[in-house]
């Protein structure tokens, strides 16, 4: 175990964090009719050794944490990434001023994993 690494508390573990995306912040408010924004979330946190089942780890991540624990300088910890996303529906004007309602996949982070 590396001596200078800070202790990992449950709040530091890899998990979804709340993020509200407002379409006006990205300058899309004049063509997106609804919603005005949505809770998109994001993944943040550590994937420490040993990886527990709650961290939705891949086999690759488990091996990477093992190698990281042996050689922290040479191999980084696995990343915390979305493992389950859900769609949202967006109502907007297209390039020809038609009104469109479209279902978009992978817009909201529901679960994160290592």
């Amino acid at each position, binding site marked *: 175990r590396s001596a200078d690494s800070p202790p990992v508390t449950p709040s530091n573990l890899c998990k979804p964090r709340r993020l509200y995306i407002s379409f006006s912040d*990205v*300058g*899309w408010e*004049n*063509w997106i*009719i*609804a*919603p005005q924004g949505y809770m998109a979330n994001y993944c943040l946190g550590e994937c420490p050794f040993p990886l527990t089942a709650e961290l939705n780890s891949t086999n690759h991540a488990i091996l990477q944490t093992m190698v990281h624990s042996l050689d922290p300088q040479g191999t980084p910890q696995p990343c915390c990434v979305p493992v389950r996303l*859900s*769609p*949202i*529906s967006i*109502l*907007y*004007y*297209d*390039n*020809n*001023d*038609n*009104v*469109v*309602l*479209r*279902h*978009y*996949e992978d817009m*909201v982070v*529901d679960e994160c994993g290592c």
Partner: protein
Amino acid sequence: LSLQESLLLKSLGLSTKPSPKTPVPVPSVLWRIFQNRKTSPSTNKGLEDACRVEEFNVPGNIIRVFADQGHFVHNRQPQALLCLQKRLYFNLSVLEEGEHLTMAQLEIKFSHNSYHASGQGRVFELRLYQTSQMSLRGMPSRESSRTLLVEQSFAQLHKSLLFNLSGVAKDWRTYSKNLGLILEISVDGGDGASATGGLQSLCASIDSFLDTSLLVVTLSQQQCRASRRRR
């Protein structure tokens, strides 16, 4: 940032960031479907649900409402019973290559406040033709250049009429094959009303004719890959 934006817009099926010039009001049916999805998000449902429009019971994940770009046809010698003749045109060339059209519904909308007492009880005849050959302006269109799609009588004007045009609209994706439709509304001159000035006032109630739009449901095969059922 603009490169990121253009990549994202492309993945959303848009060539550039839209900048609506004359934004039309949102059709109530789209608003209703949007609200339904908002209250019951498909988080726990499978891809099959996300790729189906329950409201119309058809496969699809994109619903577009196209505004009519056609114009009124003005004949030099108006036919006695013909109140209205209008070309209907919907530009379906925006559909992407991987999209499969599963439904097209024409809506002919009449306003609520134009119910004329003179028109009460009168029967109107609606005919919708598919144009198969263009005729020059001022030249009479030949009967052979158009195919009758719909013939319907209606008495009241303060409502919408809906017609299924799924079969016809599939051809309209090819720009050269899209010659639009001809809409004709006439009055039934059974009691000799056409001989009097009464006909004009009857036709005036057709002024309530507001607009037409085409609702199109498509299935993006990129997002909704067809799954083969196990035999």
